[in-house]
């Protein structure tokens, strides 16, 4: 670890040198390519935003298209709220996402700590069960979950949406790895001082893995906010819809009114983009840890 840290400035200097060495035309080509990819990835979002701001007097089907709205209006956003209870849907999504964050953080931290630190009979097989659970694709147990939810009479409730994802196996393993990487000595010292397992967990171990916990929280939020297939199966009553299901409904029923659909998608995607802009580094860390260690 320390070797990497020491080499870091050296590497940066190397990159800077490489940057200077790069011929001007190559640098230009690089940035042109970057801008082209940028247009491809961000362009569709901007077009959607532009469509959602265009007034009824403006032809959105024009050819050649006009990229910027000429009569900027927020009427379409009000229109969405009149057509479907979009704020109720957003509230439902928020409830589901926040619950998912809380259950995943608490559950994964507790289970992860138990797997990493506590000695109990069957610890090894418990770990194997978690790894195996990760291999079962969600899509192949949908039907069984649907039947279980019906038996519990939780179909068409938000609880039914949350329950199957409330503790992700991947999150448990992430937390386990984070706890296992902590040095034993600190906890041993606390043990000698008379701290019990719970105190060691809350006071010492948990504060040391805040970064991983943040990753779990963010991906739990994003997963729940973006999920489509499972809520589509569980929810049938419009008053219980989450945003994604509501958008699908809006699209199915008012497909002709593109301005409305566009406004709806902007409402759904904006909170996540704000979250992403603020917490970028955790998003990237999550991908790295999830892919390499999980």
């Amino acid at each position, binding site marked *: 670890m320390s070797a990497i840290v020491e080499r870091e400035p050296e590497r940066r200097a190397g990159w800077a040198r490489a940057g200077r060495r790069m011929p001007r035309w190559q640098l230009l080509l690089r940035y042109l390519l*970057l801008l082209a990819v940028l247009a491809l990835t961000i362009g569709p979002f901007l077009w959607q935003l532009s469509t959602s701001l265009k007034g009824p007097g403006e032809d959105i089907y024009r050819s050649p298209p006009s990229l910027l709205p000429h009569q900027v209006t927020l009427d379409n956003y009000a229109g969405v709220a009149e057509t479907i209870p979009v704020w109720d849907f957003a509230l439902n999504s928020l409830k589901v996402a926040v619950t998912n964050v809380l259950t995943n953080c608490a559950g994964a931290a507790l289970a992860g700590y138990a797997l990493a630190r506590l000695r109990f009979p069957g610890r090894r097989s418990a770990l194997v069960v978690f790894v195996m659970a990760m291999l079962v694709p969600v*899509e192949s147990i*949908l039907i069984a979950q649907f039947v279980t939810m019906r038996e519990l009479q939780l179909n068409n409730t938000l609880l039914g949406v949350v329950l199957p994802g409330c503790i992700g196996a991947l999150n448990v393993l992430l937390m386990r790895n984070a706890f296992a990487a902590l040095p034993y000595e600190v906890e041993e010292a606390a043990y000698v001082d008379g701290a019990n397992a719970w105190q060691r967990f809350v006071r010492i171990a948990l504060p040391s893995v805040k970064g991983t916990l943040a990753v779990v929280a963010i991906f739990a939020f994003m997963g729940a906010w973006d999920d489509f297939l499972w809520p589509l199966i569980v929810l049938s009553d419009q008053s219980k819809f989450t945003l994604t299901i509501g958008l699908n409904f809006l699209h199915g029923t008012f497909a002709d009114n593109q301005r409305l659909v566009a406004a709806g*998608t902007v409402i759904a995607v904006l909170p996540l983009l704000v979250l992403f802009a603020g917490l970028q580094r955790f998003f990237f860390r999550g991908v790295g840890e999830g892919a390499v260690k999980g």
Partner: protein
Amino acid sequence: MAAFSLYPFLSTVAHSFTDARTLTAGRFVGGANYQELIHDAMFWTGLRNSLLYVLGVVPLLVMLPLLLAMLVQRHLPGMTFFRAAFYTPVVASVVVVGLIWVWLLDDRGLINALLEGLGFGRVGFLSDPWLLLLSAMAVTVWKGLGYYMIIYLAALANVPRELHEACAVDGAGAVRRFLTVTVPAVRSTMVLVAALSSVGAFKVFSEVYLMAGPTGGPGGEDTTLVMLVQQVGTGLSGRVGYASALSVVVFVLTLGLMLLVLRAHRTEDA
């Protein structure tokens, strides 16, 4: 946790041998569901589309994000911004992404307007079953680029610069250096990406559902396997037994696909 993953899986296997429906418990019917599956034309359509999806999406998702990662790897001004921007489609919900592209690819949407402006005719991206499947694949690739780019970035950071420099001194061009230094160094990551993206592509649901509609386009031509599971097994008249048999097939094929990718990796090593 185990209760929500392993138990449902075992109960799926058990259900697949019964004729259970949503509102009625089933009787044991042996392998009848599996027999019906073999003679079900929709099953073969779904299997074909899901496999085509893997073939179409995986090579692009293994190569393009690697090139993208190399493009944003250097520490030049603005790179943090570009990385974040390229990751944005990953953050957006698949429903949002699907609807954005439905509008872009609409008969009177932006892409057709641009095509017309350039003097080409309009293309029915969302009305022709084959074009629709291709369009859905393009959307999946577009949404996945940023995710795999980040995975590749982590792998690229471990490629020693000295190797590139030595190669450059020996007079190797950029393409040659890419093939002899970069690709071997990130090969295990490429296998990981191939495994992840092929499993994801095989289970595709949302993109096709949103672009083709709940029934999978005209005559169900674009139905995928998971769409079939959802169509057959849910709702008040869902055929739980038959859908469970479908689910078991999805599970077995997913596992097989993963083993195939890993095996291809090992034979390459030998």
